[in-house]
């Protein structure tokens, strides 16, 4: 089995995620990019798990998926509230926390 391919793919996905998080202004897209990052990590976990022939990585990634689902639920709720208040989901407009 070739571990490298999987790792390279997940690294590529992770970088896509970072790009999305940092560069997109649409909040929904930012959230989707976060999902991409999480899933690239999951892919890493599973790749190593299969490579080392143990099941821990699978279990762990299942947990990560569940947590990611919860996280995206909260995230989308926030986005929805922002939209209700501002009629926009441009994330660069939301800067009330400026010190």
């Amino acid at each position: 089995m070739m571990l490298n391919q999987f790792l390279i793919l997940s690294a590529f996905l992770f970088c896509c995620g970072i790009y999305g998080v940092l560069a997109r202004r649409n909040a929904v897209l930012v959230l989707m990019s976060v999902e991409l990052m999480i899933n690239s990590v999951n892919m890493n976990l599973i790749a190593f798990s299969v490579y080392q022939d143990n099941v821990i990585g699978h279990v762990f990634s299942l947990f990560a998926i569940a947590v990611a689902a919860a996280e995206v639920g909260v995230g989308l709720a926030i986005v929805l509230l922002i939209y209700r208040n501002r009629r926009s989901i441009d994330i660069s407009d939301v800067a009330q926390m400026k010190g």
Partner: protein
Amino acid sequence: MLENAWILPALMVGAFIIILFFGKKLPQGGWWVGQAAVTACLALSTVAGVQWYHRESVDGLREPVRNLVTWFSDGNVKVQLGSHVDGFAVAMLFVVSFISFCVHVFSRDYLRDDIRFVHYFASLGLFTAAMLWMVQSATTLGLLFGWELMGLCSFLLIGHWWEDENNSTAALKAFLTTRTGDIGLLIGIIILFFAAGHSFDIAHTNHLALDGGIKQSLLLVSACCLFAGVVGKSAQFPLHTWLPDAMAGPTPASSLIHAATMVVAGVYLFGRLYGVFFKGFSIAAGGMNLGAWIGSITIVMAALLAFVQTDIKKVLAYSTVSQLGYMVMGLSVGAWAGAIFHLFTHAFFKALLFQGAGSISHSGSHHSFEMDRMGGLRKYMKWTFGTFTVGYFALCGIPPFSGFFSKDEILAHARYNHFGFAFAAGSVGAFLTAAYMTRVMYKVFFGENRLHLAHDDHGHDADTHAVDEHDTHDAHAVYAVVGGNEEHESHDDHSDPHESNWWIIAPLVLLAIPAFMVGIAQWPWGGIPKNAFEHFIANETFEKSIVHNKMLIPFHWSVAVPSVALACAGIAASLAYYLGAKGDLGLVRRYAPARWLHSFLKNKYFLDHLWTGVVVGSIRGPIAKAAYWVNQNVIDGVVNTVGKGAAATGKIVYDVVDQGIIDGLVNGSGSAARDGGGILRILQSGRVQNYAALFLGGVGLIALALALFV
């Protein structure tokens, strides 16, 4: 019992918890729970004493019984707690249980209708537990726990009637003043921990100190630090000011905590870590050391102050300070056994005197402690008078009362171990003690009764149980449940003085017996077992320090006769003064120098002004801001004191240091923080993506570091 001495504090903790949580639901406020527990403690400590007495000894020394558990360990450092029971500890266990027993009995009636009856007994229980724990503690860490817990109970009991602001101030003062000394104690313990090779064990530390396992300079520093704790707890000059104020608490609590037991905790620490002090202060070398100086100064200074007090409890408080000075001085001149014996005898007779004063105020002077409202009470209160007299003779050191034997042993050691100043101070102290106690005896028990003199303008409405606030000294009456028990006669504010009831008399009698005859425990002549107390408490530290250096002084007539003569002279001088009908202030009115001395003493050498005006006044504000500046304050305070009067100085220091330097510093640090914040706030853009970028950049750096260095 020696193995399981921890049962004693455990019993008292149990009583404390039961009384605190269920006391209000139990009949009679649950005082009997505490009484039962303390009775059990008294019985068990007596058993422990008998067992220790019969323990087999090798060369006159008995092996201490140790029972240690490891609290936690980290690497090769094991932190242990547990008990180290030897004769010294057993004697202390007995004293604490005995006095606490008497105080429990006494308090039942004394505080009968008090609004915080339950909390009072809970605090007494916790205090007794803490002290019983402290005296058997095998490690300095365990000792510190008990020590601080006692400080807390002292605070609670002084501030028992906290509605009166004076009382809560006194409680705070006691707490903070002793805490000042405790800083030194803590530092000393930490130094010793490292000096003794990462061990808190007291026996081990003493062993190392006496065998030269720890450097002399280190011992000196740690002895001085520990001595600060002793000075604070045992009310030595110059931190003695809290003890007279601590009399704001209920009298039985004063008797237990601020006369017999807690205040001797400092002396106990001194005697327990004697190896450290002996080597640190170079006691074997002779010549005055820090402890001998402080003790000697305290003896005379406090005894002089006792002359100008009009409040009987304050006289006794200064007397306690003075007697504690004897103990500290005694330990510092090599009278280890003598000082501990004085601790032992003093606990009995001073607790007796305090409870006698409590009895007087309870039934003889309408809850006032002003001696101006007493007088002639010997006719009304025969039992109180009799027992108080026993305490009086014991305190004056008249043979064959117990105080004679212990005080004399300290003086003999001071003289023949060549501590001239300490001997002189001790002798002067003997004279002064006898004189001021005679003053008390005269004013309280002889002459005309003055109770109703100050009282004629008072409305005679017995039904309302009205209590006039201006002359009610003991807040007891003020906070007692008004209109409570009909048969509780002392609430009738217009009765003549009368004897207290048996709940109060019984402990007095119980205390009078040892106050009279416990001296035979250290009998210096033949016939009965000689120096039995000394053999009882002797331990390895004593053997290696005092005995090994030939500093153990036998009884000497050349000390005993003059000291008794001085005490008699004190009594005679005082009697001549009063029987000459000069009154307390006659001399003061007629002679200017006497007037100056009187006002000097009346103002307690202006020490309170120094502490509260200069030191506290200047520290109060900034202490929260920067502890570092305390240093500056004190130094500035001293510099200013040279030029100005003490009271004015406090204000000036406050203005200059607080408003000028401290405020400047605080403002400076504020603006520095603001400028720094100005730079940092650029980062706080409020934009999520900037934060994410920083975060990911950080992760990247960590990843890079891992890749490069791991």
